[in-house]
């Protein structure tokens, strides 16, 4: 049956089959977390926004949410230790530092990150967030596919 598909559909079917069960389960949990935060206290689960607003204005719910992320990841690593891997070499101090600066600056200027614009903005069908996601995806693909190799970052 699969052989009767045209090459494009064949490729697509292969990619979809390649998405792992944990990937989907984890994604559903992330979506559920965003929905829980909104239904319970009416807040958008945008991690960069919560982080930087928390630095400026405080708010116990913000620190509990961020602390929960750290704790939840720790819990996941205890339950499934084999999933806790870093499958790329350490890119070194300067790449990490420049990357952090750009992410901090960019998410403040652009009003969100993968969680705020991605999970929540797309969920709210915001056109602004859709544009944001397309821009940061394209820029991320450019750096990872080309710039990183030009700079000689170990891959």
């Amino acid at each position: 049956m699969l052989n009767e598909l045209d090459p494009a559909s064949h490729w697509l079917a292969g990619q979809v089959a390649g998405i792992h069960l944990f990937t989907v389960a984890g994604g559903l949990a992330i979506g559920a977390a965003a929905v829980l935060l909104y239904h319970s206290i009416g807040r958008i689960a945008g991690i960069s926004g919560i982080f930087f607003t928390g630095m400026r204005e405080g708010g116990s719910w913000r620190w509990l949410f961020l602390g929960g992320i750290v704790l939840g990841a720790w819990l996941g690593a205890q339950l499934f230790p084999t999933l806790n891997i870093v499958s790329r070499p350490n890119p070194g101090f300067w790449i990490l530092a420049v990357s952090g600066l750009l992410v901090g600056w960019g998410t403040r200027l652009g009003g969100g990150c993968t969680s705020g614009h991605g999970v929540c903005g797309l969920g709210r069908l915001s056109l602004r967030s859709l544009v944001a996601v397309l821009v940061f995806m394209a820029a991320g693909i450019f750096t990872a596919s080309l710039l990183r190799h030009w700079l000689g970052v170990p891959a």
Partner: protein
Amino acid sequence: MKANLSALAAGLLFGLGLMLSGMSNPGEVLSFLDWSGVWSPDLIGVLGSAVLVSVIGFRLARRKARPWFAAEFPALPRKAIDRPLLVGNLLFGLGWGLAGYCPGPALAGLALGNDEVLVFLVAMLGGGVLQQALARKRNDL
């Protein structure tokens, strides 16, 4: 109290999801962003399943007068698609593709014995604080 507990529970679920989905592994993120090597669709699988749940959840919230443990849903300002949005997300994406970290996964990395996130998080804090200081200075002028 209930509001704080819900925020903690939402954070727990979020962190667990990041870890299970593989997004706390910057190598997994880069295997989606890097089209020059072996490509993995997992990141789209994670974002897609998360958005599927959040579309339904945000739609259901429209029928509610107020959240369970707060007085009201804060009004979300309607803003235009402007230059800061485009430039900001461009810079964010450039940084994301360099090391494979965005804010959530880097935060999760703190619990995973992954020391390199410390450099990233401190720099991210610095970048955000600088941007906000500059924005305030411009507003004051």
